[in-house]
């Protein structure tokens, strides 16, 4: 018994040592992605289940991103022959992400894999703070409309309006082939992120939101609103895992 307690204590010590300098764990109060009712400091949290039996359990913290298996007992009345038991979705790395048919529809240009989980909440409505746009460009692209509506300018007046994409692209394959093409064709110096490391690709070697962000626990030494749930202690550590340029005034 004593041995067990000591062992457990050591394990806890070891685990807490691992997360030194990092933010709260997903299961802890104060982690913004902990949506349980008890996380009283958070804007986003569940309603206690005892208020209404149809509400998700207040302590279930996974279901908000990782949808559990569940379907209604009856099939659709207008399509009795429908055989679908579950909709294909992307809530877990153990799902059919390796399926070739799925790959055919998840090429770069659209978010795929785990990034869908992030962007289906971070859509400017349920949650702010994520923008997925193509093509990627660091500088605003001025667009000359023939008429800016809603403004004070009259009809037919051309005024410049700037639109831009300010987010790093996600959901693209990043393997040695891609790195070589970037080098040989575009003269850009990239590298494969060192392994094992916080900055990691998914199982299909694709960059995803989770390459730079750890949605379960902020790993940054100093928490920052501009780099929430950051995957490494220092801001540059994440960028420089792939961008092989340092130091430089305009590395990318």
């Amino acid at each position, binding site marked *: 018994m004593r041995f067990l307690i000591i062992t457990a204590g050591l394990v806890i010590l070891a685990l807490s040592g691992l997360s030194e300098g990092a933010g709260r764990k997903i299961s802890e109060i104060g982690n913004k992605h902990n949506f349980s009712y008890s996380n009283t400091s958070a804007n986003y949290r569940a309603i206690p289940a005892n208020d209404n039996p149809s509400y998700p359990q207040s302590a279930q913290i996974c279901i908000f991103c990782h*949808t559990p298996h569940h379907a209604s007992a009856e099939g659709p009345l207008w399509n009795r022959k429908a055989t679908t038991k579950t909709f294909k979705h992307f809530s877990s790395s153990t799902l059919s992400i390796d399926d070739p048919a799925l790959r055919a529809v998840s090429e770069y240009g659209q978010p795929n894999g785990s990034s869908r989980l992030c962007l289906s909440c971070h859509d400017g409505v349920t949650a702010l703070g994520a923008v997925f746009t193509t093509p990627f460009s660091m500088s605003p692209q001025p667009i000359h409309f023939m008429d800016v509506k809603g403004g004070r300018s009259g009809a037919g007046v051309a005024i410049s*309006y700037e639109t831009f994409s300010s987010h790093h692209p996600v959901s693209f394959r990043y393997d040695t082939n891609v790195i070589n093409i970037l080098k040989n064709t575009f003269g850009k110096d990239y590298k494969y992120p060192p392994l094992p490391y916080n900055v990691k690709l998914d199982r299909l070697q694709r960059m995803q939101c989770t390459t730079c962000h750890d949605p379960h626990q902020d790993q940054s030494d100093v928490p920052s609103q501009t780099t929430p749930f950051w995957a490494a202690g220092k801001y540059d550590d994440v960028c420089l895992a792939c961008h092989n340029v340092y130091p430089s005034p305009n590395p990318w």
Partner: protein
Amino acid sequence: MNRIKILIYLILLLSVAACSHQRAKSEFFSDIGVPRVWPSAPEQPRVKLLKVFTGPDEFTAPKGAMSSLFELVTGERPQSVGLMTPAGIVSDGERFIYIADPSARLVHKIDFVDNEMTYITHSGSEPLASPVGVALDSFGNLYVTDSVKAKVYKFNKDSEYLGALGEGVVEFQRPAGIAIGRNDHKYVADVLANKINVFDNKDRFIREFPNSPEINNLNKPVNISVDLNGNVYVTDAFNFSIKMFDASGNLVRTIGTVGDGPGTFARPKGVALDSESHIYIIDANFDNFQIFNQTGQLLLYVGSTGKSPGQFFMPNGIYIDHEDRIYVSDSYNQRLQIFQYLKEKH
């Protein structure tokens, strides 16, 4: 010189309007090559795909009157913006479709009679930050929710800015879904405040609901729709369900729960009603919309993951017009898809 410009503009506009109104409208809704219906034979078809609209490029030939005029007067070619992440959507069913696009930070205005796209980018002198919801009143005035500015802006039919809804009376936290009833009452879902604000036909704030928030909690209401009887349907995102309230704001029914199969929700988004009060709900994770009857039974689901016509990639907004045309903003396919609900007598 200005008068001449206006005169040319008027002549062009009138001539286009006179000769092509009906033709252009029917062409816009009926150019899909492959007919697709749900459910497939031998079941009775209930929903048909009408149109996949990918953006302003579809309008480049023939060029619309406004565009020609612009080139004539300024010597410059006007530029257009494609759909980036289309969200809230509304249509008058006659001429205009409005699509809020938070990534592009503007509202796309599709004129499917004159084959023209224009853009609402400002409220007065202020640029929009994150337009996510749109609704039309019976006069054709447009209401736009901005989730970052935390405002609801009003524009007239010509997209001129008229003012902010509830200014000085209601302090919105994050207005998102917006719907306008037959009596021109406006319903605004405030995601962070977890409540619905109601305004009358003169834009005066009249009340908020749920009436008993301690029992009928809303948790991140993101979208909203209202039926002909004034019943209100709210997408309750963090409760993975749709809540139906009567016209007085009392909870009538809850539809759906968290899950991954037919009849459940993972990321419920837009909600809309057809002329027979069937309830349509988008799910961004399932890449479909599911249709329920008034008692909450699942009738049909339409769509799957992909890029083909009738498939979706994280769809978001939905709107159904008075002719039962179903407009879906197919966000990450960066397009609009339009379906037709087929009534029994069709």
